[in-house]
C-alpha cells in the first residue's frame, strides 16, 4: 500500500510542492525570485512539451506568453483586479480560449511549417503590441502590486508568497496534465507523433488531438506569461518577440518530453546560466548562452528527463 501511494501522481506532487515551499524559506530572496521566474518559463515549456507529445514544436509560444501577460496586466491596471491567484487563473482560461480559436488554423501543419507559422503569429502580435500606445507601445507598462485573497503582503514577504502560490498552482496544473497525458487523447497524441495516418485509420482524429493539445499549451503559456508579468511587475512586447519564443523551445528540448519536473529544472538551469553569464561576462553572455545551447543539444539530445533516467538505470544495475 505505501509503495502504491508513492507511485501516485497526486501524492508525489503534494510532496514535491511541500518540499519546495519549505525549501523556499531557507534560500535567499533572489533565488526565490529566480525559481518563480523559472516556474513561469517552465509552464510555457510544459505547454510545448504537450505539443511535442503530439509531434509538434511551436516556435511562437511568445504569442500566448504575451497574451497571458497582457491579460493579467490589463486586468490589473484597467479593471483593478490584483488578486494573483485569480489573475493566473483568468489568464489560463482566456489564453486557452484564444488558443482554441487559432488552433484550427495551425493544426493542419506539421514540422517546420507548424513551427514557423506559430512564430509568424507571435510576430504579428508583436507588431500589434508595439503599435498600441494606449498600453505603453514598445515600453510596456508597470503592473500594480499583487494581492492574495484581498490581502496585500508586506514587501519582505511578497516574493515568497508569490513563489508559494506559483508552486501550488503549478503543482495542480502538473497533476491535471499528468491525468491528461494518461487519458485517451493524451495517448492518441503520442500515436500521432509516430504515425498520424494510422491514427486516422483507427478512427481517431489527429486534428482534434492537435487542437486540444494546442489549446492546453496556450493556456499554460498564458499562465506562464501572467506569472512572469506579476513576478516582474512589468510587461512589454518583448514577451512576444521571437527570441523569447526561442528560449521556450530550448527549455523544452533541454528537458525532453518524458518528464514534467525536468521542464522546470531545465527552465531553472537556463535562468541561472543566463543570469550568471550576464553577471560575470556582461560583454559575451550571448556567446556563453549559445555555446551552452549547442553543447546541451549535442550531449543530451533527448533531454534531461532521459539523461537522468539513464543515470538511475545504471545505478540500479550496479
Amino acid at each position, binding site marked *: 500500500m505505501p509503495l502504491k501511494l508513492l*507511485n501516485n501522481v497526486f501524492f508525489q506532487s503534494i510532496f514535491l510542492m511541500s518540499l519546495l515551499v519549505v525549501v523556499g524559506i531557507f*534560500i535567499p530572496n533572489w533565488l526565490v525570485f529566480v525559481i518563480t521566474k523559472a516556474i513561469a518559463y517552465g509552464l510555457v515549456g510544459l505547454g510545448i512539451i504537450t505539443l511535442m507529445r503530439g509531434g509538434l514544436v511551436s516556435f511562437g509560444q511568445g504569442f500566448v506568453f504575451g497574451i497571458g501577460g497582457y491579460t493579467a496586466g490589463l486586468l490589473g491596471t484597467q479593471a483593478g483586479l490584483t488578486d494573483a491567484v485569480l489573475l493566473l487563473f483568468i489568464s489560463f482560461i482566456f489564453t486557452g480560449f484564444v488558443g482554441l480559436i487559432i488552433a484550427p488554423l495551425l493544426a493542419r501543419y506539421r514540422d517546420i511549417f507548424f513551427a514557423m507559422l506559430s512564430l509568424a503569429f507571435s510576430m504579428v502580435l508583436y507588431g500589434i503590441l508595439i503599435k498600441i500606445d494606449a498600453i505603453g507601445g514598445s515600453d510596456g507598462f508597470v503592473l500594480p502590486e499583487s494581492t492574495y485573497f484581498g490581502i496585500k503582503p508586506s514587501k519582505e514577504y511578497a516574493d515568497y508568497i508569490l513563489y508559494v502560490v506559483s508552486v501550488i498552482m503549478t503543482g495542480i496544473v502538473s497533476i491535471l496534465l499528468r491525468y491528461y497525458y494518461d487519458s485517451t487523447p493524451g495517448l492518441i497524441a503520442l500515436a500521432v507523433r509516430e504515425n498520424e495516418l494510422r491514427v486516422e485509420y483507427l478512427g481517431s482524429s489527429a486534428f482534434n488531438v492537435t487542437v486540444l493539445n494546442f489549446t492546453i499549451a496556450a493556456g499554460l503559456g498564458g499562465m506562464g506569461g501572467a506569472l512572469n508579468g506579476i513576478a516582474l511587475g512589468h510587461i512589454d512586447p518583448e514577451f512576444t518577440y521571437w527570441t523569447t519564443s526561442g528560449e521556450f523551445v530550448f527549455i523544452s528540448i533541454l528537458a525532453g518530453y518524458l518528464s514534467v519536473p525536468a521542464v522546470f529544472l531545465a527552465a531553472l538551469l537556463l535562468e541561472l546560466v543566463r543570469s550568471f553569464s550576464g553577471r560575470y561576462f556582461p560583454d559575451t553572455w550571448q556567446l556563453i548562452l549559445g555555446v551552452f545551447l549547442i553543447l546541451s543539444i549535442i550531449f543530451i539530445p533527448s533531454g534531461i528527463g532521459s539523461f537522468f533516467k539513464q543515470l538511475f538505470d545504471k545505478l540500479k544495475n550496479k
Partner: protein
Amino acid sequence: MKFFRHCLILASSILVSTMSFVGVTNADDHKGFKIGVVTFLSGPAAEPFGVPAWNGGKLLIKLLNEGKVPAPYNKKGFGGMEITAIPIDESGGATKQVQEFRNLVQRDKVDAVLGYVSSGDCMAIPAVADELQALTVLYDCGTPRVFEDASYKYVFRTAAHAAMDNIAIAKYLIEKGHDISSIAGINQNYAWGKDSWKDFSVSIKKLSPNSEIKNELFPKIFSGQYGTEISALLNSKAKVVHSSLWGGDLQSFILQAKPRGFFKRTQVVFSAGDQVMPGLGNKYPEGVILGARGQYGMMAPDTPLNNWFYKAYMDEYGVFPAQPPYRMVQGLMGLKMAIEKAMDKNGGKKPNKDEIAEAFTGLEFEAPGGLVQMKLGNGHQAIQPHAIGKTAKDKDGNIIVTDIVRYKASCVNPPNGIKAVDWINAGFPGADC
C-alpha cells in the same frame, strides 16, 4: 521510484546552486561602496551610448578611487569609501532589466544602482526600485514621464528629460531666423521618438502658429534602411526636418541621406545629434543644427571642471567625450555629493539609503556640463542648462560646432509641478531666459 528520483534531482540542484552562489552573497563586507552600473554593452545602443558612457564612468571611478579628481570631488571614492562597480548589460528589454535589477539588489547586495539609457527601462525600474527600497540613479534616459506620472522615494534622475532638447531647438530656430514655414520629422517609433517629435512640433506651433506640419515619419527602431523615408522627406519639401534618431540609426540615416543632397536641400535639426560625431568624424554633414542633450562635448562650457574632464577622457581614449560619458559622470558626481552630504550630517558613518535619499532630494551640484539642480519631481528630477549649435567646417576641413546659443536651465525646463507637455501647450509660462 521515479518520484524520489525527481525529488532528488530538484532538491540537489537547488542545493548546489544555492551553495555555489552563497559565496557571492557572503563576500559582501560592506566596507566600500558597491554600485551596479547598467548600460548597453551589446546590441545597437552599445556603441553610441552604452560603451562610451561606461568608459567615462570607469575612468571617473578609477580617478575617484585614486583621489585625482579636482574639487569639490577630491575626496577619495565616495566619502572615503572605495567604489566597486558591477557592469550589467542593458540590452534585452525592460522585463529582463527588472530581473537584472533584482539580481543586483538581492544577490549582489549593491548599495546603489546607476543606469538606464532606454526610456522603457526607466519606466519599468523605478516601481521595482521602490518596492525593493533600492537607491537608484537614472543617468540618461529621456522620457519626462518617470516623475510626472508617479513619485518615488529612492529613485533620482541626474539629467534633464527630453523636453528641454526640443524646446531649445525650437527657440534656436526662431532666434536665428530660420524659415520654419513647414516642418517634417523622422523619429523612431517608440516613446523617445514620439515624445521628441511631439515636444518639437508643438513648441514650433506655439512659437510660430503659421508653420505647417508635413511628413511625420516613424520608422521602427534599428531598421537601418531609410531610402524610402529620405525620398518622402525630399518630396515633401519641408523647410525644416527634425529628427531624434540616435546611434547606428542616426549614422545610417546620415550616410544614406548625404549623397542624395538631403542636407543641402533642407535645414536638418538633430535633437541628440552629437553622440555619433566621434565615430563619423568628417563624414558628418555641415549646416546641421544639433543639440547634445546638455552642454556636452563640443558645446561644453569653458569651466575648470569641464576642461579637466574633457582632457582626461581624451587622454584615456583618444576621442573627445560626447553626451553619454558626460551623463554618466554627472550621475556619479551627483551620487557622490549626496553620499558625502549625508555623511556630513550623520557624523561620517557610511550612510544608509534613507539618509542618502534625503540628501539627494533637491541637491545642487556642479558637473562638467554645468550646474545640475534636482528641482523637478519634488527634488528627484534634475534640470540643467542647455546649448544648441550648428555644424560647420573649419579651415582644416574638420567638422566643428559654431553659432552656439546657451540656455538657462529654467528657460527650457518646466517648473516643478507642471508636466512638460502642459507647459509647452500653455506657451512656456514662467520661463526664465
